[in-house]
């Protein structure tokens, strides 16, 4: 029996700690397993017994890259439980904050983590020696994303200005003006990013993914919408648990999610793009078309282009919001604690992020449930490896290992968030 073994202890350029085991027998991929050994973090348990008002700051601590996503799913779920709706300028500011997070998170992944895979470098530092202009552009773009977080969130990482009902403080129009000038530069840099990554070489691999993302009647989704799939699912966030289930696998400290009766599914930029192309701004649509992307794209390696297109959208949307902004009369809407269930789903940079809470009459959290995007994508990552790697088995070990890692990085997995992620074991039988 032909035998080949490749082992990588820790997968680099992903957030958190995990490994990968691919078993090959007689030239066929027999299994591909993603193991996550990042220790469990017990956030859901230590939310219990805390006030609903503390939850945005506690859940922000789940991730240093996408804290806004955690805050947003949290506040929408709490507001659902308390029976209030936040609209107008406060809602727009939430979208603006989310624009900042998408810019800084996508930028980090596109430039620092994923582009080196396509250009044949071990990492961003090696790439920077020969692609200095691109890396400088990426760093500056990320900084602008961070500036949005600092202005609206109070600081760049783990923002502290978001509360259930709105914000603690809202910006004056004049504070947003310098940001608009920076965002005009960022929008051009994002367009340059789309052109840069569109020039990469992509493996020609596609699968019939079941994409899952939010869909809003007239917005590209950040913070609100129905949960829809490419196979016809269309539900409110409060019906999530009726349609999705989590199960434990021994190889992972992160629970695996699947759609009841439909199995694995894919969340994230590729899913959002396929389910919401027509809701992108005209400029972002045009950038996608010029980059050779059709309104539907099932090649996960091209997700790097989709992330760049979403950066164009985020800059465009941020500029639209700043232009229309009128200071709200109050930084938050009033609320009164009450008992009940609340459900929230928003679009983290890596995909759908679901929160569910049960509150007691005094607003104390009795139950909390958080399903991060990387948990939902684990099955799809394994299926990609099992489906795609078989075609690459004639590659030398080092190149094959690299291709496996690149395939995982298509998902920009955030293992730290999911653990409740990479080491590669390649067993060729």
């Amino acid at each position, binding site marked *: 029996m032909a035998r080949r073994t490749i082992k990588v202890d820790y997968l*680099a350029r992903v*957030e958190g700690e995990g490994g990968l085991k691919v078993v090959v027998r007689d030239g066929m991929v027999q299994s591909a397993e993603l193991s996550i050994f990042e220790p469990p973090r017990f956030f859901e348990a230590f939310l219990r017994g805390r006030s609903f008002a503390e939850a945005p700051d506690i859940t922000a601590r789940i991730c*240093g*890259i996408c804290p806004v996503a955690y805050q947003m799913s949290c506040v929408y779920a709490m507001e659902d439980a308390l029976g209030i709706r936040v609209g107008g300028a406060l809602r727009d500011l939430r979208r603006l904050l989310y624009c900042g997070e998408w810019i800084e998170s996508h930028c980090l992944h596109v430039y*620092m983590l994923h582009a080196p895979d396509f250009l044949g470098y071990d990492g*961003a*530092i*090696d790439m*920077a*020696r020969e692609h*200095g202009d691109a*890396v*400088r552009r990426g*760093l500056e773009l*990320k*900084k602008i994303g*961070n500036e949005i977080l600092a202005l609206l969130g109070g600081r*760049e*990482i783990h923002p502290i200005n978001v509360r259930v009902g709105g914000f603690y403080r809202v910006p004056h129009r004049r504070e947003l003006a310098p940001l608009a000038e920076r965002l005009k530069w960022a929008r051009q840099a994002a367009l340059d990013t789309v052109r840069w990554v569109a020039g990469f070489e992509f493996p020609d691999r596609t699968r019939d993914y079941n994409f899952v993302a939010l869909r809003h009647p007239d917005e590209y989704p950040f913070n609100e919408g129905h949960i829809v799939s490419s196979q016809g699912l269309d539900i409110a966030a409060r019906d999530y648990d009726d349609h999705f289930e989590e199960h434990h696998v021994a190889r992972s400290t992160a629970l695996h999610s699947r759609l009841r009766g439909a199995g694995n599914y894919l969340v994230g930029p590729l899913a959002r793009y396929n389910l919401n192309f027509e809701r992108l701004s005209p400029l972002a649509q045009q950038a996608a078309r010029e980059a050779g992307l059709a309104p539907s794209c099932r090649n996960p390696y091209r997700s790097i282009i989709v992330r760049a297109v979403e950066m164009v959208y985020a800059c465009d949307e941020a500029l639209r919001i700043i232009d229309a902004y009128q200071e709200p009369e109050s930084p938050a809407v009033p609320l009164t604690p009450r008992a009940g269930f609340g459900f929230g789903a928003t679009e983290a940079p890596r995909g759908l992020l679901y929160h569910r809470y049960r509150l007691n009459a005094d607003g104390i959290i009795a139950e909390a449930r958080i399903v991060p995007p990387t948990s939902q994508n684990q099955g799809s990552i394994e299926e990609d490896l099992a489906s795609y790697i078989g075609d690459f088995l004639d590659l030398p070990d080092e190149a094959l290992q690299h291709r496996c890692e690149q395939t995982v990085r298509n998902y920009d997995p955030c293992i*730290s968030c999911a653990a409740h992620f990479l080491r590669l074991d390649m067993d060729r039988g």
Partner: protein
Amino acid sequence: MPTVRRIIIGLGNPDRGDDAVGRVVAQQLRGTLPADIEVAEERGDATALMARFADANAVFLIDASASGAPAGTIRRFDVTLAALPQGLFGLSTHGFGLAAAIELARALGQLPPQCVVYAVEGASFETGAPLSPAVAAAVTEAADRLRAEIAPIFVEP
């Protein structure tokens, strides 16, 4: 106005035991140095550090190390001559911290002409813990060594 920009950056998480030592050294130095020297504290994110490097002529960084050396051991690295030894600083949340910032800056031609890293070996990095005694005892020596290194290059305003 001085024509050189000099900055001291204490690195670390203030709530993770000995990881805070770089910041504690920076705090002890603050107010005891020539007025043109900026003293800053950072958590260690590479992009934030690179922003600090911009336009600086001299950067002195202090960080906790975890190499297995005795707690409180102070080591000095001139990173303009060589990269930081691998495995010395394993404590960045996302593996994209001080060493990456220095090498990315070097690759982009943005490494300040003078760039020195002081590493203080930590013993305990427990959440919420204070500095361990051996590391707390090394703070004054680290601050003194930095002051002595900076004093000869004091720039007359």
